[in-house]
């Protein structure tokens, strides 16, 4: 039996669940994401060990879902970002706790500015093999 990975068991399924939103979805940080985009990145702390026993690894995984839209017009960009955040919140799968959505900030990605916000989520992962 192939060993499980966080990418295949958590980050990719989360990215797959998010594919219905109107944006480009990545399970990792790409070199040049295309706006609007949704990226899953590790939060800090990333992995928490909360359960007893060590024969099987059970981890709490803290992730940030970064959503970003083109920053051309402030009111329109904020509206677009809010709509993208709402659409992401609607499709986050069961088994995830959803924390705060951080304040939107203007961030430079490549040559252009984007309006981005972070959604903090957590879930649990069990290592097999």
């Amino acid at each position: 039996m192939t060993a499980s990975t966080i990418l295949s068991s958590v980050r990719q399924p989360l990215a797959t669940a998010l594919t219905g939103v109107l944006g480009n979805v990545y399970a990792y940080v790409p070199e040049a994401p295309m706006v609007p985009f949704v990226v899953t990145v590790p939060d800090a702390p990333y992995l928490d060990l909360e359960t007893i026993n060590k024969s099987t690894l059970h981890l709490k995984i803290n992730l940030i879902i970064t959503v970003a839209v083109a920053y051309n017009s402030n009111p329109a960009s904020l509206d677009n970002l809010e709509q993208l955040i709402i659409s992401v919140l609607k499709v986050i799968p069961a088994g995830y706790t959803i924390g705060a959505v951080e304040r939107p900030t203007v961030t430079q990605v490549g040559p252009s500015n984007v309006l981005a916000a972070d959604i903090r989520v957590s879930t649990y992962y069990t290592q097999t093999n």
Partner: protein
Amino acid sequence: MATVVITGRDISLSFTGGTDIEAQATSAVLTKTNLRETYQTLDGEAYKTTNIEGTFELSMLADWGKANSVCEALWIAAESAPDTDISVTLTAATGAQFVFPIMPEFPTAGGAGTDAQTVDFTFKVSKGVVSDTFS
């Protein structure tokens, strides 16, 4: 002798029914207490232990709906056989094992919107009987 450190990761836990409790438990603490009377005599204090009690405190992530759910097993036990012991085996670390009977309790259900659902138990150890095996 080198300093020994044991942690919660050294704990092994199982109970009758065989559900996968280690995947859910975040804390497991067995407490055994001597109930000791103190008498003031002309010679000073004298002591007499009149009873031994035990409690088992368990905190866990709720697992309602899971196959072989711990919460559901305990709920059913508390409902159908509330006065029948469940045998628990707790190993604090290799070489220190405790086996004891607990009375089943109902788990709570539900939780806050921002957090994982959790359940906290304080089980009574029946008659305070704890069987220990030390290496």
